[in-house]
């Protein structure tokens, strides 16, 4: 058994310096499109090119509703004029502009994770938060199986018809005060599944959502940022969240 101890020590410290310092390693985030200038005569074709209607036109500038981005890269790959793409990951935003979650959320929190129809990627990224690179225990975040012990409900997936009841039950079983963090494009807007007759258009259709983390999937650092936003230790993403009308 001693070999494991030696092994562990030999591996050294892998943990990211985030949130004290920004993480600079490659491949930690897929990035997101951001708005800005774009050739005026091509804006319409760009808008129709995006399968989830991320872009909209505002006086010759493009505005990107990043909540809806599913990383299909149709706006940067195989296209002449590429939209601006930012390789950031501090994406957590607060819904409805509510910033103070109050004293109960300022220290360690317990998180209950519910998979409400997720494709497996967001869930896998949540799972990565427990690996040595992200090690969320050091920040006082713990995952709990029981909703009775949870302060925060983390939901991934568009909320399928069969999971709606279970999700509501988990939420009701949590003691107050409680917060809901929705992670991933599907949890925010339904993503590619929005038009399915058995899927809701995101968690907000079912529960009151407090913090939103975009991405398809949201990378671990973005989820970590979302949790830090939920406990008031990080400021929400600075971009102005632009909400495009949902496709009928």
């Amino acid at each position: 058994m001693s070999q494991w101890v030696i092994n562990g020590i030999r591996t050294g410290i892998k943990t990211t310096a985030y949130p004290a310092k920004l993480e600079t390693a490659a491949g930690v985030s897929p990035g997101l499109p951001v708005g800005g200038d774009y050739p005026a005569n091509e804006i319409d074709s760009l808008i129709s090119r995006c399968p989830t209607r991320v872009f909209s036109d505002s006086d010759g500038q493009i505005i990107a509703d990043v909540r809806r981005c599913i990383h299909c890269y149709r706006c940067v790959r195989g296209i002449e004029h590429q939209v601006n793409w930012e390789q950031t990951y501090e994406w957590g935003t607060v819904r409805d502009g509510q910033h103070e979650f109050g004293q109960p959320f300022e220290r360690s929190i317990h998180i209950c994770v519910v998979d409400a129809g997720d494709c497996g990627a967001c869930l896998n990224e949540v799972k990565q938060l427990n690996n040595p690179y992200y090690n969320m225990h050091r920040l006082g975040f713990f995952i709990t199986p029981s909703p009775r012990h949870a302060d925060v409900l983390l939901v991934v997936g568009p909320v399928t018809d069969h999971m709606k009841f279970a999700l509501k039950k988990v939420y009701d079983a949590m003691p107050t005060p409680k917060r809901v963090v929705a992670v991933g494009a599907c949890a925010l807007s339904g993503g590619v599944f929005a038009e399915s007759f058995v899927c809701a258009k995101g968690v907000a259709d079912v529960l009151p959502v407090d913090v939103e983390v975009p991405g398809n999937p949201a990378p671990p650092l973005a989820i970590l940022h979302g949790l830090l936003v939920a406990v008031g230790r990080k400021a929400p993403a600075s971009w102005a969240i632009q909400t495009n009308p949902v496709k009928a």
Partner: protein
Amino acid sequence: MNCTELKREIDQRWPGQVQCRSDAGSPCEVTCARAALPELCGRLFLEWNFSFAGLIVEEGATEWQLRYCFYGEREAGWVHLLATAPLAEKTFPSIVKFVHAADWHEREAEDLFGLNFEGHPRLGDFILHDDAWQENVEPMRRHFDPKAAMLHRKPDADWHPHRVVQEPGAFVMPVGPKYSGVTESVHFLLETVGEDVIRSTPRLFYKWRAIEKLAEGKTADEVLLLAERFAATTAFAHGLAYCQAVENICAAKIPERARILRVFLAELERLRQHAGAIQEICESTALVVANSQAGILEEDLLRISGELTGHRYLFGLLALGGLLCDLPNDTCTKALKQSQQALKQLNELEKHLRVSSSFLDRLEEVGIVALRDATVYGLLGPIARASGLVRDLRRAQPYLGYENFQFDVPSEQEGDGYARLRILFAEARQSVRIMEQAVAALPSGSVREPIQLRAGAALGWVEAPRGGAFHWVRLDENGKVARYRIVPPSFANWHGFHLSVEKFAFQDFPIMLSTFDLSVAENDR
């Protein structure tokens, strides 16, 4: 046995009832009378060593068409058995008596199309849960109206789970759909008389998103997004199977560079997925350091994928007719070097795991699946190969020119948790071996050939990290998808999962689950 021999054999045994048609390069299509269907399927599956790929139901303008897909080794090729019936007649004979692997396929067709399979022991509550929907909803029918279905919903309030164990004192322990820490949503009915799990029945489809219904009427390019995103831990494999199906319809040939890059990326995904599966096994046995080290490796491989392609799960790379963007040679070489480094650490991890007795105690002789059971249930991928059922689509029915790559298909005989773990390590080594050959063989040139869509239907298949994945696509005259059917490997493996969980202690359950490396998202679609 090749198609000609098969034809002769069939003509002798079923004169006049069966018609064979085979063109070079396409599957041998056998149209047979409904009455002859079960026995013919049985012969293919049990005697002639064909594997069952899936049942594809299509609702035509006037008739049902049921397509039973089988494949054999190399020359044997593909055999599609076709059975038809007028739309008003909804009864077909069940083939499960001979081909048990078709059990869930028939249950699905009954639930979604309202077909009846005569002789099937248990139809009903499957994809549409009876405690949420009434019978006869039939969402995959053409005339289905979701609004009306929602409005007239009548769940069965008296529904209760089907119980297998009838001993005195037996009870059911329900687990899920929300259970444990970070897990996919699935419900287990663990039947027990006290200490041991006698029978475990998974109740799936909590995450059913109706992908196949959603795809109907969309353009071929839009459906690619769905194919990539319905089970994202193996996104590239499923996207690839879909692309190959469409490319088969259009008889499109993809550029050489795109072909080699696709092989490279598919193997990178397999390597990453296997590292993730190994991490889950270490976690389930509570071996903390090994869990951390496997976790580091998985994250390393996710970062390698992210650095190489921009996306950690390889989204947005595939396009019909090739790849959406080119990957420069030097970044591929860099990714290969990093993957080789990761493999070295994976080998190191295996070396230590093999001498950790506390770890081996929990895996050896746990969750045994016998070869006979694996064959009867048609298990796929690493799980089947751990039980000695060696069939790998890269070998059996090569695609992307896999026949030109040097690699072994590892196999084990024991069929226990430890055998499944060893297979994962061995396959990871083979993946890196293929990646090395791919980088060495990388030609220059374009990565995308514009594709001319045309009406037709075809099957695309890929050996995904979890086993064979089959995607059936039918395009109409406008290039829209008329029917899309996904048969993911987890569908077959969930069907056989209960085999491994018989007469075992409760505390072994998470270990058996993790060694099976099952995806709920992939199964539920």
